[in-house]
């Protein structure tokens, strides 16, 4: 067992094979050798460490991947008024799918933890926890590709391109259709 101390001074007795998924800790253990000394993790809080050190098939992967893949969509009813009266310009220009309010709240809450985990994974050097599936969606799009608008919604990213820039980007990407 290895004793880890988090940034909020909590101590965790953790199995060696679990903590060695972290290249940082593995290297520390190799450098120090057999020792009862606690390993300080000043950049990782106890709540994040709990997630990171859960057993390997565990919930972290589900947290990172599964919840994002399960975002339900709701169909927005067509407005009876002209669209510009009902939608923002951005929505008018590019509306694909909508994420339900409940899911949006859930994601917003959960994202804080997600990004803390990603930062901790980076610090601890645990590559498997870095999220690979941001661009993919297993539930809504059979093709597996998550459309840009949905990626924006997921992470509250603002589409700050002008219509001219968007046209230019589209033109730049046209060659790929000939590949």
């Amino acid at each position: 067992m290895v004793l880890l101390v988090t940034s909020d001074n909590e101590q965790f007795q953790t199995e060696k094979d679990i903590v060695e998924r972290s290249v940082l800790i593995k290297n520390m253990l190799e450098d120090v050798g057999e020792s009862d000394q606690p390993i300080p993790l000043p950049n990782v809080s106890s709540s994040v460490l709990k997630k990171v050190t859960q057993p390997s098939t565990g919930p972290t992967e589900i947290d990172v991947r599964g919840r994002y893949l399960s975002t339900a969509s709701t169909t927005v009813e067509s407005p009876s008024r002209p669209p510009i009266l009902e939608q923002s310009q951005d929505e008018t220009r590019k509306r694909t799918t909508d994420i339900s309010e409940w899911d949006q709240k859930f994601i917003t809450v959960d994202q804080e933890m997600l990004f803390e985990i990603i930062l901790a994974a980076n610090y601890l050097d645990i590559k498997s926890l870095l999220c690979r599936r941001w661009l993919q969606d297993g539930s809504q799009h059979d093709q597996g590709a998550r459309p840009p608008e949905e990626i924006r919604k997921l992470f509250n990213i603002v589409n700050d391109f002008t219509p001219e820039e968007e046209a230019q980007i589209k033109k730049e990407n046209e060659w790929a259709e000939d590949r």
Partner: protein
Amino acid sequence: MPTPVSVRVILAKQAERTRHSSKADIERFIEESEQKITSLKSQISTLWDCEHSGVDASQETASQIDTLVELRDRERACVASLRYIISPIRTLPVELLAEIFELAIENETHVEDIYRISQICSDWRVIAHATPRLWTRPIRVKLGTEQISGRNYADGLGAWWARSAPMPLSISLERIRGKMDPRILEHVLRVAPRFRSLHCPNYLPVCLINRLGECRLDSLEELAVGLPYGYPDTFVPPL
């Protein structure tokens, strides 16, 4: 018609406005803006109903609606910008985001994936364009004019490789059908010193072989001729 809202300008303004604000402050700004939006929507709705019920169909009413719609869109852009400013994804350092982009790109769909990343927002686009390793996965190149529909293929390929500089490249030349497109050929020859892996069909025009022979191929580690396309699965012994 209402004037289009410049999201980038609003984002910059909100970033400046909230530079010293706490997350709680920003959440309060969002709430205030949402209340304004609700009020504006109600006013728009009232005016629209007046206009279409024939009570007041004057030019002035139409103009008022346009003004209110513009204000509402600005406020919505404010809310979106403020949400972005406090979004957890912005806590990630640029280097880590670039690394995640790299993990998220699949070999089979790497071109589509990287283009999707680079059209999310200008921040992501800048990061993607400043990360050459994202643009270095194997590319199949069509040199023949009959193989392309001419829509910016040469320019697109050139821009793609420019973003990958100075990293080594893996490319596969497809069998040429029709005449060779001189612009594409020039792009290929320009990046030849960066070829790490070059796969060619079993027939290449002599002039192309001669031109390639004139290039410095200092980075070349792998050359395959006549193999069916399918690498990197196909085993090719290194030079």
